[in-house]
Each structure stands twice: as C-alpha cells, then as structure tokens.
C-alpha cells in the first residue's frame, strides 16, 4: 500500500522504535539514508544501517537481523520485487520501502499492511487494478487447479495472498458441492475454466504492459528531504544531500529533463527559505547553496578546461573530440572564446580570475554555434569556507568513483561507508580523493571510447548495437562505470555513424567480471533519442534468457544490468536479436 502522508503515517509511527535501514548501493540511496539518519538522530531513535548490493545482499542482510527488528526500511531497493515472497518475514514485521525504481511490484502495491511504499500513488503510472490481476478465488474448483493457479501466479508476480484465499474458496466450494448433479458440475467447471483462462491471458497482457519498461520515480533523497521539511527538521546539509540525490538521477539519465526542471523549482524555494533562515549569510565563509546555470562538463572546476571538455560525454560526442578534426574544433572554440591555451590547460582554479568569471558566459554564447546548446543546465553549487566550491555534479561523480573503487582489500561495504562519509563536510579529503578518482575514471572511459570507435567495435544486429569488452578491466567490471562507458560509446557511435536509424537503436555492452568464475556483466542502454528514463532491457533480458535457456543472474536492482555466464553470451545475444526484431 502507498503511504502519502510521510509525516504521520510513516515517521510518527516509527518514533521510539528500532529500525533497520537497508540501503542500496547508489548515490541517491546514500543521500537518502544520510538524511534519514540525521532525522532519527534528532529523535533519539535507534537504528542500524546496512549497505547492500543486489537481491542476495538484501536477503542476507534481512536474515541476519531477522527477529530482532520489527521495522525495516528499504532505501532504493525492494520496491520491484515481492518483498514478502522474497524474505518470508514474520507477521509482525513491517516494511517501509522508499524506492525510486519503477515499476513497483503489484504485490507490494496491494499489500494491506506489511509492505508500505512511501510515495504518492497519483504519481505512479498505470498500476493495474486489483481485480484485473488478482483472481477472486470464489470460483476455485479442485486442488489440481489450485496448484496450477499458484504456479502461474508465482511466475508472474509471486502470490502473497492467493494461498490464503484459495483455502477460503475451497471451504465455500465444499459446502455448495452436493447440491449440483455431476454433469452440471462438470459443465460449470469447464465454463469456469474457460473464463479463467481468458482472464489469465488478459492478466498476463496487463502485467506485461506494466512491467515491460523499467524506469525511475522521484529521487528518494528528495522525498525524504521533504519529510524532513514537513517535520521542520531540515537544514542546509540535508538539502544539499537531497540535491546530490537528484543530480545523480540527472547525470545517470534516470530522470527526464522536463521533470528535472520542475523539481528544480521546488528545490529553489527550499534553498531560498533556508538561506533566509540562517543569519550568517553575510559571512563569506558560511556554507551556502546557490542555484545557477552550469555547464555539462565533468568536474571542470577541479580539472583543466580542455580535459574536462574532452572527457565529458556531451561535448565530446557533439564535437567528436576523439578525432583529429574534433581536436581542431575544440581549439577553434577556445580561440573564439578568447581562452588562451595556457589557461585552458592548467587547473581551473589556477586560471586567471577574469577568465574564470567569464568562462560560463563564453561557453554559453558559443554553444549554439558549436552545436552544443544542451551543455547548459540548471543546478546548484555548495560553497563553504573560502576555497571549497562544489557543484552537485562534482559530488555525484566523486561518490560514484568512490563506490567503484572496490579492490581486494576494500569491500563494497567499505566503499559505501567511505562514500557516505564523503558527503559530510568534515571529510573533505575523502571527497577530493573521490574527485581525483573520478577524473581517472572519465579519462579511462574516454580512451576506451576512442579506441572502440576507431576500431569499429560497435556492431549492429539491426535492432540493437552491441559492444563486447574482451578483458576484465579495473574500471569497467563495475556496473556504474560500464553503464557510463556504454552510454558514451552509444552516443559517440551515433555521432559518427551514417546510419539513419542509429539514434533509435539501443546498445548492449558487456564486460567480463571475473575470469575465474567466467561471469560477465551486461548492461542495456536506451536509444539516444529516448529522453525518458524508460528502459525495456530488464524484461527483454528476462525473456531472452528464457528463450535461450541461459541462466541469468538478475541480482542488481537495476533490471537493465545483469550478470551471466561468459559461455552463454553468444547464445543469449542471438536470442535477444530474435526477440527484438
């Protein structure tokens, strides 16, 4: 069921209880959990935060804490799976789910008590009506059919309630049974079976429509921030975390630009409200959030202008910066901007103050001419002290890089903790280290894109592109980096290719995960022309796997990222080709 009034139906219910917070491995989730933690701290509520990666992690985390906690809060995970089915919780355990993944699993939506989804049902798109997907089991016939029915339900959506209902139905049936003759009963049964089959077909269709695309809802961090606001417990830090959360959605293409602009307005009002509330706005060194138009250039405030332009997806693809001509064009642009190469090649913060002040307008003026109009976008910057000034995007890139910095002696959980520490202002060095890491990552992505495009490694099957990385890679064996790379590759390829339908084709990229286990990571990227975050690969992967009889490990909460056995890859891609044509 949905909970709209977070303040009364969610937060007030939890006060004084002990809570287990299970947090998914993404930036938005981290931000949301940080906000939640500070709220709970204000109210002296005991909590436990456990970072997880994927479904297995969720199950493990829950099982470890099972029995000790009655209230479980899932942040950016669990909304799309039938949580009751997955975790088999005891009756008195309540799950609160704030998840930006969509579509929600219907069993979660129609759970009457145990599962509460935080959010506004009015914002959710076409959730199937209850009657159309859950069979009114008064018409249940015999045990055989019961089982069959159960089986079906499990396959499609899992069945929370069907078991209980079926028992009730049988009881009714037994009472009525003796009144009818054998023949009548038989006839009736056939009729019922037919109606039933039709209904099932219809249900399958509805469910398919509903689950076909995976997409994203509102940023969880923002949702939680609004809760904080309603509780009058909001402050600059919390707001900043919410901004970082939504910026992640923007940068990873999880939100439509229209929706983003709308959210910006809300956030702006929060910003001005909180800025007016604090009295120290005159001091230069006070922490301050400002709205401004900024450039889609990776980390440029912490890098050099040339590098930032080259390694940013948008500018690189529009100007084709991996070619010699592109490089020339970049120089032309710099010349026309009046930015001397000496300055463009040194760290932004060391550039001439005048140039720095004019940098934004210089780029903006020439954006049309160089076909990079979309390089401008509205965002927020955080400044505190005399030196620290970060755009929300800087935070996102740094955190992503930290999340990716898994090594032998550094578990994903360590990275998670580091990332969540980096969000607080006291740990600036962590953030800066993250920014340096992010630079390496982006440079690596660019080089990979360059070599891939030069060697024409992007292949087309007619219905989609695919790109296969042959070797394990320090960066690209992790989902986020692989997704970033794939996106860059797709955009780059579309920019160079002459094929007309190219912007409408999606891309699949794969990279070996672990040579020893022979697994590889597979991501699906929506076509360039598609602005909405809808991605049909989740369902498509599922079906292709069924068709080709390959086993697919769909452990991540992003359905478009899966793992499968390296040896199954060709078979799987073939099946996918057939499916999508």
């Amino acid at each position, binding site marked *: 069921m949905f909970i709209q009034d977070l303040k009364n139906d969610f937060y007030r219910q939890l006060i004084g209880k*002990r809570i287990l917070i299970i947090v998914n491995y993404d930036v938005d989730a981290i931000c949301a959990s940080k906000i939640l*933690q500070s709220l*709970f*701290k204000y109210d*002296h*509520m*005991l*909590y*436990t*935060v*456990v*970072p997880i990666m994927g479904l297995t992690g969720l199950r493990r985390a829950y099982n*470890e*804490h099972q*029995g*000790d906690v009655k209230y479980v809060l899932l942040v950016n995970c669990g909304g799309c799976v039938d949580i009751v089915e997955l975790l088999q919780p005891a009756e008195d355990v309540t799950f609160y789910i704030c998840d930006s993944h969509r579509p929600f699993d219907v069993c979660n939506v129609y759970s009457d008590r145990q599962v509460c989804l935080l959010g506004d049902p009015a914002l959710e798109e076409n959730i199937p009506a209850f009657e159309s997907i859950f069979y009114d089991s008064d018409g249940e016939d015999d045990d055989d059919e019961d089982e069959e029915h159960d089986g079906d339900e499990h396959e499609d959506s899992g069945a929370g309630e069907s078991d209980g209902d079926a028992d009730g139905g049988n009881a009714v049936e037994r009472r009525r049974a003796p009144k009818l003759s054998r023949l009548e009963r038989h006839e009736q049964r056939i009729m019922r079976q037919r109606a039933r089959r039709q209904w099932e077909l219809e249900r399958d269709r509805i469910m398919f429509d509903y689950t076909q695309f995976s997409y994203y809802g509102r940023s969880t961090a923002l949702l939680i921030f609004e809760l904080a606001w309603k509780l009058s417990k909001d402050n600059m830090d919390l707001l900043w975390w919410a901004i970082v959360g939504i910026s992640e959605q923007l940068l990873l293409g999880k939100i439509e630009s229209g929706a983003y602009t709308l959210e910006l307005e809300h956030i702006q009002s929060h910003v001005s409200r909180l800025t007016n509330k604090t009295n120290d706005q005159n001091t230069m060194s006070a922490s301050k959030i400002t709205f401004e138009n900024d450039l889609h250039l990776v980390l440029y405030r912490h890098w050099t202008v040339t590098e930032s332009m080259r390694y940013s997806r948008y500018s690189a693809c529009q100007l084709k910066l991996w070619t010699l001509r592109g490089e020339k064009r970049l120089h032309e642009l710099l010349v026309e901007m009046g930015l001397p190469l000496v300055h463009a090649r040194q760290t932004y913060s060391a550039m001439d103050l005048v140039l720095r002040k004019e940098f934004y307008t210089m780029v903006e003026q020439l954006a049309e001419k160089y076909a990079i109009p979309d390089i401008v976008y509205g965002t927020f910057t955080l400044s505190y002290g005399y030196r620290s000034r970060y755009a929300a995007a800087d935070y996102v890139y740094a955190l992503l890089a930290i999340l990716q910095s898994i090594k032998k002696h550094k*578990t994903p*959980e*360590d990275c*998670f*903790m580091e990332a*969540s*520490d980096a969000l607080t202002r*006291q740990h600036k060095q962590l953030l800066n280290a993250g920014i340096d890491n992010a630079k390496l990552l982006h440079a690596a992505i660019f080089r990979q894109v360059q070599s891939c495009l030069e060697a024409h490694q992007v292949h087309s099957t007619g219905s989609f592109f695919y790109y296969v990385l042959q070797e394990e890679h320090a960066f690209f064996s992790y989902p986020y980096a692989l997704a970033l790379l794939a996106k860059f590759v797709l955009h780059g390829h579309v920019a160079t290719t002459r094929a007309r339908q190219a912007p409408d084709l999606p891309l699949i990229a794969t990279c070996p995960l672990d040579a020893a286990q022979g697994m590889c990571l597979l991501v699906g990227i929506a076509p360039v022309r598609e602005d909405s975050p809808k991605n049909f690969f989740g369902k498509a992967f599922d079906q292709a796997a069924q068709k080709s009889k390959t086993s697919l490990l769909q452990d991540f909460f992003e359905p478009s990222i899966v793992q499968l056995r390296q040896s199954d890859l060709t078979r799987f891609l073939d099946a996918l080709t057939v499916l999508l044509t």
Partner: protein
Amino acid sequence: MSRSNKMFGDKAFDLLKDLKRSSQTIPAFDDDGVRQVLEEIKAIFEENVAQASSYNSSGDRSLWPLLNYRHAALQRNKRCLLAYLYERMQRIKALRWEFGPIIPGDIKQALCEPEVQFFNNYSKSLAAYMRSVGDGQGIDLTGNLRPPKSLYIEVRCVEDYGKFELDDGEVVHLKKNSQHYLPRAQVETLVRQGILQHIA
C-alpha cells in the same frame, strides 16, 4: 667483570629502553634480560661480599672506593629492574581497565606467569571494590570513562561481533560494516575494545 666491553647496569638499562621503545601495548616479558640482570646483581654482590670480608680482615682502605662503586652499580641494577617491572605493572593495570577481567589471547602470551597472576589479583580486588562501593550497590568504574556528550552515539561496526542485547531488551546484530545508533553508555566498552568505531 668478565664482560670487559660492557658496563655494569647496561643490561638493566636495555630492559627499560626496549620497553619504552616498543610500539606494542605490552611487549613480551624479557625473561632472559631479567635473569641476566639478576645474575649480574648476584655476581656483584658476591664479589663485594668477598672483598668486604677481606676489607674487614685487612682494613685495606684502598678497597673502599671499589666497594662503594660496586654498591652503586648494584643499586642501579636493582632500580632499573624494578622500574622495568613497575612500568609493566602499570600497563597490565591499564589492560584491566581497557579489556575487562579477561586478557586478550595475544597479549597474554607476552606476560609471564607472575604477571598473569598479578593481573588476576588486581582484577579481583578491583571487582570486589567496585561491588562494595556505595553500601553494596556497586558502581562499574570501568564505564563512563569519558564525560558524556550525548545519550546516543553513532557507531560503525569494524568487526563481526554477533548479537548484542541492550538494556531494554532490544537485540542488535553487530556485523562488520553496518552502522548503528545506540545508547552510548551501553556500547562504550565495545568502542573501547575496537569492535565499534565511534563516528563523529
């Protein structure tokens, strides 16, 4: 006097230096060193006794400085040795406050038998004292080591610990890399033991 290039008291001084320089909480008991110092004391003493008797019998005043010198060396040795033991004793006492009545295995190996016994005695009498304070109500003095700033603190679990029950009956599962918000008073010991890390 057999070790011509070594001075009296060198060994004893080494004991102290080693202890001071050691980075471990408590270095292994230097059995050998202590024995050597004791032997040196004994040797000096015996030589002195021998010469003192000859001094007594002969009244040879020329032996007087030598006797004095030996006596000073002996005193110094003794002093260094006891200082060594005293310093170790201080650290053993600190163990009791830090880890509670049971010595962690790795540290126990560094202690000699009498030290372990001292620890146990110390632990026992401390416990007895803490029980007897306040008309038999008892106070746990090993808690509340730092002035309280807030009732609850945010901690991160650094090691797997398992279930931990709070006073009000809540059970918390402490697993590596999970983060918790718990009553300070109750988790203070775990923080001190390094199982939890307090994050500001």
